[in-house]
């Protein structure tokens, strides 16, 4: 059987430059991004739909929407 490979868009945070302000978490409609331990934001890949809201909001512009294979 063939497994159908789909491309999905997901947010990815450059954690090195993240300032952990949490602006991204505030706007994510699916609560798919959270600031972990006050250090950097992390995306829950299983929830994220790649809408890009967080990336637009992020004041440091450290979120990228990437295509990933699932």
């Amino acid at each position, binding site marked *: 059987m063939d497994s159908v490979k789909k491309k999905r868009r997901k947010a990815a945070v450059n954690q090195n*430059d993240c*300032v*952990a*302000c*949490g*602006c991204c*978490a*505030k*706007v994510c*409609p699916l609560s798919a991004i959270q*600031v972990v*331990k*006050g*250090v950097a934001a992390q995306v829950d890949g299983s929830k994220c739909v790649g809408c890009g809201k967080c990336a*637009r*909001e*992020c*004041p*440091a*512009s*450290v979120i990228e929407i990437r295509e990933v294979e699932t």
Partner: protein
Amino acid sequence: MKKHWYDYLWIVELTYLILGFFNILFAWIGLFFFFIPLIIAVARGTKGYCNRYCGRGQVFGLLGGRFGLSRKKDIPKWMKSKAFRYGFLIWFFIMFFQMLWNTYLVFAGAQNLRQVVTLLWTFKLPWNWAYHGTLFHPGVAQFAFGFYSVMLTSTVLGLITMILFKPRSWCVYCPMGTMTQLICKVKNGSK
């Protein structure tokens, strides 16, 4: 998204700034905005203040977002570099201690009360209309003028970068944000 009570803390922040126009002694309330983030960071190891309760961030978010007063452009790279963020934090500390030193001088009687609010560490704005005497030592008022200067300066810087870049650009180099993140990094043992 569901609104929480803490999504309205921008009202507190605006009220604070306005009260300082009428009576400078209200500036003392600002110590809450200073200690609460630190206490949360030290006690819980999170940036809970930034992530939820910070009214200042909300003001920029609203003005730049809802009211559209922001170009919504990417902040320049150097402004989010560690060198700039930590450098700005140190600069802020130096200015803060200088302010405390001035307060001390007034308390010690070595200097008279100066009824000015210093903007961007340079411009001295006359602010005598907001001073109606104090029941306490003039040093109490000197601290209020100094602290309000810090708050107004960061608001003005925040507004400028809000207009130029993203609404909450201030959060990238905000000394409180940088400091609480550092505390969390140390506390949670990451690099």
